[in-house]
């Protein structure tokens, strides 16, 4: 229990008669990379919104970073980092401005922001670009910067929503190295993706179909459970029964 940074029981979200998330139960252990997989429309985004304190569930219980999703969403927000699939940054501002803004929004002191920003920029090779406006950066760099910004305040859990969308395969692999890097420093990563090959990089994965979690375990466990050669095959077996599609 102590080692779980996310603990969810019977979480359900209904929009009218439509059940977007249907009674899901899972936990994410401290320091792991948890892959949250599913087709578009399976309920990944809705589930993630409840975990990040953006919306309340219809029923069920949940603890994120040690705080209750019903009553302590403000505390949850302080302790998580979030990177959206759009690499949302302020393109008219410089790299340094962007880092400063997000550090400030998370209530960090200026000096702390500067120290941590320098440390991260050095690690990611951003030092020479720190006064460049974000719109002038190539796509892969924007993705890296969005990642940097998401971990600037040293969150306990990092939520990554389709972090490798629209990035070439080489950059995707490099990006996973970054994720491993922060996980080594003690941050737990919660990643949604629809690249099944990336699922192999995760410690454990869950697969959502039609709002329910149909499979949960390490990639090796799932492959042997379903007798499949790869995670993509496992997903095919599960997705065959899906009613909702894109």
């Amino acid at each position, binding site marked *: 229990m102590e080692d779980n940074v996310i603990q969810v029981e019977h979480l359900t979200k209904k929009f009218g008669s439509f059940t977007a998330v249907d009674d899901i139960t899972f936990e994410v252990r401290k320091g792991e990379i948890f892959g949250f997989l599913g087709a578009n429309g399976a309920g990944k985004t809705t589930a993630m919104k409840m975990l990040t304190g953006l919306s*309340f569930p219809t029923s069920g219980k949940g603890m994120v970073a040690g705080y209750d999703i019903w009553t302590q969403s403000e505390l949850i927000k302080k302790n998580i980092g979030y990177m959206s699939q759009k690499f949302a940054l302020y393109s008219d501002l410089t790299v340094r401005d962007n880092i400063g803004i997000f550090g400030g929004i998370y209530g960090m002191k200026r000096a702390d922001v500067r120290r941590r920003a320098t440390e991260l920029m050095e690690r990611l090779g951003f030092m020479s670009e720190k006064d460049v406006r974000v719109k002038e950066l190539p796509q892969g760099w924007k993705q890296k910067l969005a990642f940097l910004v998401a971990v600037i305040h040293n969150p306990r859990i990092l939520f990554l929503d389709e972090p490798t969308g629209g990035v070439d395969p080489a950059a995707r692999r490099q990006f996973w190295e970054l994720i491993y890097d922060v996980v080594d420093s003690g941050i737990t990563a919660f990643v949604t993706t629809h690249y099944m090959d990336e699922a192999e990089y995760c410690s454990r994965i869950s697969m959502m179909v039609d709002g329910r979690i149909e499979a949960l375990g390490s990639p090796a466990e799932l492959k042997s459970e379903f007798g499949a050669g790869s995670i993509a095959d496992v997903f095919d077996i599960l997705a065959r029964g899906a009613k909702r599609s894109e």
Partner: protein
Amino acid sequence: MKGFFAFVRKEFLHIFRDRRTLLVLIGLPTMLIVLFGFAISTEIRNVNIGVCAPDKDVSIARLVDKIDRSEYFTFKGWYGSAMDVDRAMKKGEIDAALVFSEDFSSSLMSAEGAEISVVTDAVNPNNASMEVMYLTNIVYGYFFSDTDSMRQSPLVPNLRMLYNPQLRSSYNFVPGIMGLILLLVCALMTSVSIVREKETGTMEVLLVSPVKPIGIVFAKMIPYFVISCMVLVITLLLTIFVLKVPVEGSFFWMILVSLLYIILSLGIGLLVSSLVKTQIIATLIIGMVFLVPVMMMSGMLYPIESMPYVFQLIAQVIPAKWYIEAIRKIMIEGVPFVFVLKEVGVLLGMTVVIFTAAVLKFNDRIE
């Protein structure tokens, strides 16, 4: 709270990094003031006038001379008949004409009196009625003062133009321009800047951050509030020192009413931004739903009283109408604050309603 200030700082950064927009915001009031104050004017000047007088004599010549000397009219020539006047007007030589009756000077003394026809090209009705008014005034003035024959007239109208004795159109425009610019800066800029965050996806990231959603939008309003105040100061300085329109009433109340209007406009921007998803739609809505009515129906260009009844009703819900009226009263007429209580009350009510709606709608959308 620290997050909130980081956010305000970021909004200022956005504005200062985007020099062009900032220049437009500051340059626009200057441009509009110059445009409306000098170039666009409802006054008439140098109207070409022709005269047809079958029996030309000294008295008529002196009248024509007087008309020609006025800055409003330029004498183009004598025409032999009403037909010639008509032809000249069609050719565009003249815009107005005076046609004297036969035996004009001698008929002046007779019982039936003499006749002058004032003919104008009424394609532009505003100009035409203005020309008629000015011409009639000159003609009356001439016969009252320059000839003794009319001295015994039983009724001498004594005209006084209150508040704007020189009939300068800038007196009328300035409050209107202020109503227009402040709405533009506040409503358009805030709504576009909020919607931009939705478009680029940064709103999503902000919502996950510990900054409260309502803090995000209020942080956006602060820089535009500051800029609006700067615009207000620029507009007032230009008005007073360049257009030389005096502020007759209380400066304090004028500023206070303007601040209320600025806050109201910020609320409109917030409301629009909570309803739409793209910057283009936000711009269109502010432009079509808010700016055009301000130009057309707030009494800025055309008097509300002369509009069809339905439009008069619509005008009542346009915030700028009440603001412009209040500013006209305080600035031009110089009335004490008690006389604009109604306008200020309406503005205050609108502000409360719009903010309530915007905040409710905004929170509603977060879910």
